[in-house]
């Protein structure tokens, strides 16, 4: 999945990779792609994870893991870092999700459980800030229920912000026109339509 996402990132793009699974996308970016990674704690030009003597407690990513800097890297404070997102300067951000709606609503910060401690971090800022928001998730929850839904039932992170959903069985484009299948992996359009309980448009062109 990470490899497929990496393939869809335009050369030279400024990209934010969310915590967890999206960080794996970095492993599949071509070194000559010119893609620059942003980390919201205040850096452009983030390199690979730091190991051994490279580990510096003053140089971490948004997941607070030690990372390295690449030539051309820059540092900035939090207000500048989020102005960069909110101001529409980031090309792509990649996040995980609990649910995505057919029109691109994103729910990835709270399951709404009454005893949960709410925590949002930078997800709401990223959701509305990047020019394109890609989501990586399994298409079905452990109980078999779809996570791509007509309308989100979990509390929203952002409205109409997701453009692509990459899953283990298919890639979808979502937006005002609804859900379009971009690519499937070992599953038929009929089966997807049945299991998702919503109309899907298949398109081999994009």
């Amino acid at each position: 999945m990470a490899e497929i996402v990496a393939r869809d990132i335009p050369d030279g793009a400024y990209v934010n990779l969310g915590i967890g699974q999206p960080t794996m996308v970095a492993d599949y970016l071509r070194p000559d792609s010119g893609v620059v990674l942003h980390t919201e704690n205040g850096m452009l030009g983030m390199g690979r994870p730091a190991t051994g003597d490279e580990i510096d407690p003053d140089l971490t990513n948004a997941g607070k893991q030690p990372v390295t800097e690449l030539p051309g890297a820059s540092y900035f404070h939090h207000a500048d870092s989020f102005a960069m997102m909110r101001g529409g300067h980031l090309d792509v951000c990649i996040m995980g999700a609990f649910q995505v709606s057919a029109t691109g609503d994103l729910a990835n910060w709270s399951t709404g459980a009454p005893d949960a401690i709410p925590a949002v971090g930078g997800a709401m800022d990223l959701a509305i800030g990047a020019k394109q928001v890609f989501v990586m998730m399994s298409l079905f929850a452990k109980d078999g229920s779809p996570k791509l839904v007509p309308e989100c039932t979990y509390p929203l992170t952002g409205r109409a912000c997701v453009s692509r959903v990459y899953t283990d069985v298919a890639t979808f484009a979502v937006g005002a026109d609804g859900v379009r299948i971009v690519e499937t992996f070992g599953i038929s359009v009929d089966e997807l339509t049945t299991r998702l309980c919503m109309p899907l448009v298949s398109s081999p062109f994009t």
Partner: protein
Amino acid sequence: MTALIMEAAEAVAAVKDGDTVLVGGFGMAGMPVELIDALIAHGAGDLTIVSNNAGNSDTGLAALLAAGRVRKVVCSFPRQADSWVFDGLYRAGKIELEVVPQGNLAERMRAAGAGIGAFYSPTGVGTPLAEGKESRVIDGREYVLEFPIRGDVALIRAHVADRMGNLVYRKTARNFGPVMATAAAVTIAQVSSIVDVGELDPEVIVTPAIYVNRLVSV
């Protein structure tokens, strides 16, 4: 006035019961650990703490929380694998929590420091965190009105200061420091070293001394 150089205990004596204290750092990067330890020893209580997280493990902010000095935490991400001190207090109803999206948290402090009365942000529109807030459509896009967060005191960590209080930071440890320095009535910076005036290149100073009141070398 140029910054006063003093010991941590003397510096944090500026904190009074009931104060709002801005605490820098993102995880341990930029966390002013020695100033927090001094604040615990100082004893001020009933505090509102504004920071990105709500303490990790049993040290730093978590120790301040465990000592029962904090009435309310304003942060973006309190729930972490090792945030058991906050978790316990929250579930016991012994601490208030205001969750603020990370970018709004930074911008609300920036607004306080820049003399902005309030601002319209697109972050959080349509989510539970915008409920009850004024909103407005500008050029076809919906925004939510957000108000400044002002601190009585800011505790931040920078890398090097000169004796006036000009600051430079190190890598991603910069994070909230420059914004918090502008947003508090009294800003206390802990630094690794203090150099003579003129030794820092004016082109690389990130926080000008006008924002810094007290310096602690640790």
